[in-house]
């Protein structure tokens, strides 16, 4: 009785939720197929075309709309995201490993790490720019901006690893020690393979957060812009559907990233069972 009424209501709710979540993106996707170069970023679609995609890739004939300055900034953003991912994940795993034991100032250290994701991004960016100016440090995407990205993504990697270690049965490590295996080898051969799915998640978090980070980068990256900054600066002039086309492309890229993540995850889970499957066949 109750569920007969409840289920449709919940279904409608979930439907609305999904529409709200993905609606803007769907609109954006449709508008990216607007006719070019005269078509503007609004309905109705005058004529379906892939002009704006060609425009991004530099295949469209020259027109009054200047091409998006994405080439170099995309490389910068990917490099920065990669650097941030590696650094934050390594630091996050190490910090979470440290938090398995009790030490003096543990809770203070916890809040200090987590603060990085709580403090308003614009302030952090502005602050790091001020510090750089005062100390005479030059601002670059690979120095000051990199530091703010690590401060921002480290808490996510750290919290993911903390949750993983929380469910981790430490007796397998003790078992390895009691077999005469030194702690470093134990970490490499026992702990790391078992926490690897968590490490993958931490990497994904760090990469995606850094890749589209805007507010912290705005002040801390200096003249050489990362991708989100480059995109934003084109908005300041005029918006053309080429931005939408680019949005679709980056989303596809993110999906590709997620697919790689899912594949790696499945492989790492299956590796444990593979032997058993061979046995059964």
């Amino acid at each position: 009785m109750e569920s007969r009424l409840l289920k449709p209501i919940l279904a409608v709710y979930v439907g609305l939720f999904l529409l709200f979540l993905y609606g803007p993106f769907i609109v954006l996707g449709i508008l990216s197929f607007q006719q070019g170069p005269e078509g503007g970023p609004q309905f109705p679609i005058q004529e379906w075309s892939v002009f704006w995609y060609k425009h991004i890739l530099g295949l469209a004939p020259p027109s009054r709309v200047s091409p998006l300055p994405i080439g170099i900034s995309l490389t910068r953003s990917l490099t920065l995201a990669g650097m941030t991912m590696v650094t934050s994940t390594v630091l996050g795993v190490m910090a979470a490993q440290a938090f398995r034991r009790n030490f003096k100032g543990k809770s203070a250290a916890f809040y200090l790490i987590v603060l990085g994701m709580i403090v308003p991004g614009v302030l952090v960016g502005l602050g790091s720019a001020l510090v750089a100016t005062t100390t005479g440090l030059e601002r670059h995407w690979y120095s000051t901006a990199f530091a703010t990205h690590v401060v921002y993504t480290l808490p996510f990697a750290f919290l993911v690893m903390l949750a993983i270690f929380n469910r981790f049965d430490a007796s397998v490590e003790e078992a390895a020690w009691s077999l005469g295996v030194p702690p470093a080898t134990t970490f490499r051969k026992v702990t790391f393979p078992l926490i690897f799915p968590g490490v993958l998640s931490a990497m994904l978090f760090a990469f995606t957060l850094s890749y589209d980070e805007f507010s912290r980068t705005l002040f801390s990256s200096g003249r050489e812009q990362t991708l989100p900054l480059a995109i934003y600066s084109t908005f300041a002039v005029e918006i053309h559907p080429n931005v939408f086309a680019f949005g679709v492309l980056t989303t596809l890229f993110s999906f590709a990233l997620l697919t790689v993540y899912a594949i790696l995850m499945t492989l790492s889970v299956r590796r444990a069972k593979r032997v058993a499957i061979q046995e059964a066949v």
Partner: protein
Amino acid sequence: MRAHVAEGSVLRLEQLTKRFGDRAALDKISFSVNSGEYVSLLGPSGSGKTVLLRAIAGFEAPEEGRVSIVGEDVTRKPPHLRGIGFVFQNFALFPHLSVFDNVAFGLRNGGDKRTESDTRRRTLEMLDLVGLNGLETRGVHQISGGQKQRVALARTLVIKPKLVLLDEPLGALDANLRMRMRVELRRIRERLGIPFLHVTGSESEALAMGDRLIVLDRGAISQFGPPGEVYEHPANPNVAKFLNCYNVFDGSVQGDAFVTNHGPIPLARRVASSTPAYAVRYDRLTTRADAGAGLSAAYIASEYLGSAIMHFFETPDGKVVELEHHLSNGPPDAYEAGRTYRLSWRPEDGIAFV
């Protein structure tokens, strides 16, 4: 019954003390385990038996005292340099490795470098000894509880530790398997001659397995001796309680009798103890004749155990008294629920802790 003669101690604990906050989990524990000896350690939950084992292995750092292995002080040494094997209650197998790789793990990654063919040979020998041939390539999720137990044991024994610590190793197995593994454990150990220190909460396991038996109570050793001695001559009322085969009554000595709430009991055997109590074994009680000492209690229920029957009685003030009737002594008596019977025993079968 002793399989091995003492040839010097393999493990020696001196005044080992471990505190959690202001509570002493281990209070000045001293004892030694001789080479080739099987020592079982019995204690109720919270007695500190697991903490003791973890302190010996080096997983917990004691505040005071010394742990020595074959004469060498290892108190400050990390676990992987102690040469002590540890078998966990939950087995703690490496979930990402096969049965073979689990057993070979210590040989491959431990301190001594050896060839892969040597590792292979020794691993296969050990798998053969514990009866796991043919399961080498299985994942550890694909084998039964008893097989996991054997993997855990093989993994530990293959590196030839100086001493093996077992933390309730049979606790995760069902009753049938537990009985078989008891025999297996003793057989395997006798083949290898490595001393075992086996922690358990089960009195029957402790009595059956150990050459010697340690009874641990609230972080201190209550008694340490051969199982027969502990069973026949418990050192104090708590040991008698843990053995789960004694009726223990509170009371005090007045003249020639031990006076309980259930009446006076004539004194025969006296054992010095800090808390007074009177203990008499379940199987020494009878309702058939007055044997000299006794009390009155109402019959509640019986429990069939196969070779014996346990009869439960209750005294007027609510104390449950157990009477064990071995069926080899003829068919059991029939009791009427609620009726009061006279339970009696020979005075020399009782122990008065005074």
